[in-house]
């Protein structure tokens, strides 16, 4: 899922400062699961805004709505009449949702979240990055552990000299991806695979190749 976190409330309040009527629009997909922008969090944010603005003596009218997914126009357009009632939309979706909606509206669409990464749940309430969308998956070579997203230096040929006790030099709380890969490949009896030199990676398929579009001709309308 896409993992995001709520922006500091100060920042959100600043961004909506000019407006007296806003819509807080939640997204009930990825950001709901990572507890950043689903209906519950959107509701809390809306309440926080009302309280903060009343406390600051500048009342604001906050409408609330949460849609299934903000990355599809149909869900967004279903709430059309709401957008007409407000001066700006504060979206608790990931950056995708904010842009998707922005493209549909003439009023500002403001992000309430910082979108962080694609990841999975580590423990309840903790998520970690697992993929950076490089467009050319190497997991087959690395025992199912991605060095592109999980090694601080994106190394493809083994751990750097900073790997100590299985941890990354960048953050002692982070596992060294290469230690994990070596352990996993050892367990799979495929360590010899790691002796092969992985050539320079083709980053064209990654974001370095420019904004990407994915098309499935066979399913197009």
């Amino acid at each position, binding site marked *: 899922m896409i993992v995001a976190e709520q922006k500091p*409330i100060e920042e959100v*309040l600043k961004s909506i400062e000019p407006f007296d009527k806003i819509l807080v629009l939640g997204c009930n997909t990825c950001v709901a699961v990572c507890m950043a922008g689903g209906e*519950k969090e959107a509701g*809390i944010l809306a*309440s926080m805004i*009302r*309280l903060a603005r009343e*406390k*600051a003596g500048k009342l604001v009218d906050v409408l609330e709505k949460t849609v299934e997914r903000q990355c599809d126009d149909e869900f967004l357009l279903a709430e059309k009449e709401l957008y007409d009632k407000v001066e700006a939309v504060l979206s608790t979706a990931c950056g995708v949702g904010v842009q998707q909606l922005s493209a549909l509206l003439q009023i500002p669409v403001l992000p309430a979240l910082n979108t962080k990464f694609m990841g999975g749940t580590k423990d309840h309430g903790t998520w970690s990055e697992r993929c950076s969308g490089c467009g050319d998956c190497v997991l087959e070579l690395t025992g199912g552990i991605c060095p592109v997203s999980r090694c601080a230096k994106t190394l493809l040929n083994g751990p750097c000299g900073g790997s100590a006790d299985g941890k990354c030099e960048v953050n002692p709380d982070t596992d060294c991806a290469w230690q994990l890969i070596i352990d996993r490949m050892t367990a799979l009896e495929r360590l010899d695979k790691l002796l092969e030199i992985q050539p320079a990676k083709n980053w064209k398929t990654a974001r370095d190749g420019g904004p990407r579009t994915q098309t499935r001709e066979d399913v197009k309308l």
Partner: protein
Amino acid sequence: MAEFSPRITLFCCESCGFPAAERAVKQGYSLSPECRLIKIPCTGKLDVLYILKAFEAGSDGVAIAGCPEDACRYETGSLRAKNKFDKTRAILEKIGIEPERIKRWQVSSSMGEKFSRLLSAMEEELANLGPLFPDRLKKRGDN
């Protein structure tokens, strides 16, 4: 203006907080008309939103009255309530509201006296803090 009587919303769990309040009243504690009890099965049911909404509803303070952490009828409920309490305090601080306006009490059902003591102390503290939204207080009087 008459003396300010703080509006307090109390989220009380069915097993401990609410019976403690009942007990307090039976023991002669007189609940201010601005104190409102909202009964929930467990303070673990409490949502951050409930607390914020209570403030939106003009509460000058919110109290969470639940079971002692180690004696919660629903095992983890009281601890979950603690997380929400901490989180809400942090939120209040960031949006310019005194975090002292929320309290979390661990009371067992028999602690009527403790309940009344805590509530009285809270009322006093809130009276000193003053109303959350002074403008609303005037309207309240009109009603």
